[in-house]
């Protein structure tokens, strides 16, 4: 309790967020429409730093852009060999893991963001995944969280791309975030951090709306809201197509 209070106090009195430099942001698109032939999207993130005073001396301004998809709990299972076959044995529930997470930075992340700042803002992939309630009785609970990252990086759902944000004159910046085809819909949060010497000096947040549209939206809604009709419709479509193709094929042969 005391610890939490201290953290809260620290957050309130943090001098880092005294707004001397502010982000003015543009996105090439603030909504992603998932259509039938959706095969991924690239979002251009660009902006400028607004300031009233001249550019402060000292360490240069660095920019971090982090885009995260909706979070949900994930059960991670580990296989072990039992009686000669590989079986799921231990499992850990990771409380919150984003379905998508991409970080782009203007320099190597550990050089421009201190560990304490990373802890506070949950910027790196490791920090973005929370497994607070991970069972302590399972050996190596951290390995399970690592497995989530490894598997999702492999599916290009998680990525960290360092040195991909271009910064001009400590004022203008731009980067692009690639979104793969296998997106879940929801509100994606884009966070932009300005840092100097490992400290966050300003942050900005906006949302990108990722939604299914058209036929995709219609079918998805119907399957959830009128499952009986959806099931019957699927059967009718299947049978009609089966019968239609059969007849067409027979006519073709005669």
């Amino acid at each position, binding site marked *: 309790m005391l610890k939490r209070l201290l953290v809260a106090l620290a957050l309130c009195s943090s001098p880092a967020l005294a707004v001397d430099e502010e982000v003015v942001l543009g996105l090439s698109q603030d909504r992603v429409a998932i259509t039938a032939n959706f095969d991924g999207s690239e979002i251009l993130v660009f902006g400028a730093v607004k300031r009233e005073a001249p550019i402060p001396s000292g360490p240069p301004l660095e920019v971090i852009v982090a885009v995260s998809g909706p979070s949900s709990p994930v059960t991670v299972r580990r296989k072990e060999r039992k009686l000669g076959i590989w*079986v799921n044995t231990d*499992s850990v529930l990771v409380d919150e893991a984003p379905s998508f997470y991409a970080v782009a930075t203007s320099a190597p992340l550990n050089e421009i963001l201190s560990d304490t700042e990373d802890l506070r803002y949950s910027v790196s992939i490791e920090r973005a995944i929370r497994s607070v309630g991970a069972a302590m009785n399972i050996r190596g609970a951290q390995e399970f969280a690592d497995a989530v990252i490894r598997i999702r990086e492999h599916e290009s759902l998680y990525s960290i791309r360092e040195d991909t944000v271009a910064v001009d004159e400590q004022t203008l910046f731009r980067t692009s975030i690639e979104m793969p085809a296998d997106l879940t819909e929801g509100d994606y949060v884009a966070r932009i951090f300005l840092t100097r010497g490992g400290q966050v000096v300003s942050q900005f947040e906006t949302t990108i709306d990722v939604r299914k549209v058209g036929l995709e939206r219609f079918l998805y809604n119907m399957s959830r809201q009128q499952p009986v009709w959806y*099931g019957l419709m699927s059967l009718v479509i*299947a*049978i009609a197509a*089966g019968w*239609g193709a059969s007849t067409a094929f027979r006519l073709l042969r005669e």
Partner: protein
Amino acid sequence: MQIYLPIAEVSVNAFLLLGLGGMVGILSGMFGVGGGFLMTPLLFFIGIPPAVAVATEANQIVASSFSGVLAHFRRKTVDLRMGTVLLIGGLTGAALGVVIFNYLKSLGQVDLLVTLCYVVFLGVVGGLMFIESLNALRKSKKGVSAPPKRRQRGWVHAMPFKMRFRTSGLYISVIPPALVGLFVGVLSAIMGVGGGFIMVPAMIYLLGMPTKVVVGTSLFQIIFVTAFTTMLHATTNFTVDVVLAVLLLVGGVIGAQIGTVIGARMPAEQLRVLLAALVLVVCGKLALDLLLEPSELYSLGTGGGH
């Protein structure tokens, strides 16, 4: 051409799906199996979530079996009375299977048990069929036309509630076919298959039905059982992806038509050797997955769902 599947929420190549559907459709028409035992693992392999693959496969089997059964109706090779008895057992079994499936899911071991089911059933059925049909082939090669098998007068014929099945030329109790249907219904709900690979041998070896009517009759039963399974999945798990199903079945129905033609031209013994070999290959692949150390020991599932 990539296409985004609305329920599975993944993007896959449309031509890959059409091709898979066509390939499995040919086998479906040739052997009278729904092809689900092949398609469901293939769908896992291309990255469709298992729950969606199982449910959608049931829907697709309805379609591919429908065009197949039409072809068999035209050739009058469907035993409707036998089909109905099998169906009554099948619907009961499917309902029972869903209960078992949900119980396994609560234990968190559903993947393992589904794979084990595949390995055991495919292995036993494939092995038996392979040996039996090789023997039959050897006999026919010797030039001695295999003597018409004497009807077994075993336990199958000692049971009450006898019924005459004219199309099959049988006079047997309804209990064995109903039990076969029940068993296949359970498997269909648990494994996401039509169950033809169990039912076809059971009808030939257990019930003694003529090979000619077996394929059409099993397709007839499969249609209704898989339609029932589709409805159960659509209303409880919301995992039927109609876009995926349509793509698979467009390839599937055309394949099934070609397969029916090929099947009608090939000798029954050779057909059975091929089916047995196919079943054994799928079984071997699944068994290897269980025995060899996987490259990724961890797997992700949606958490906190219950």
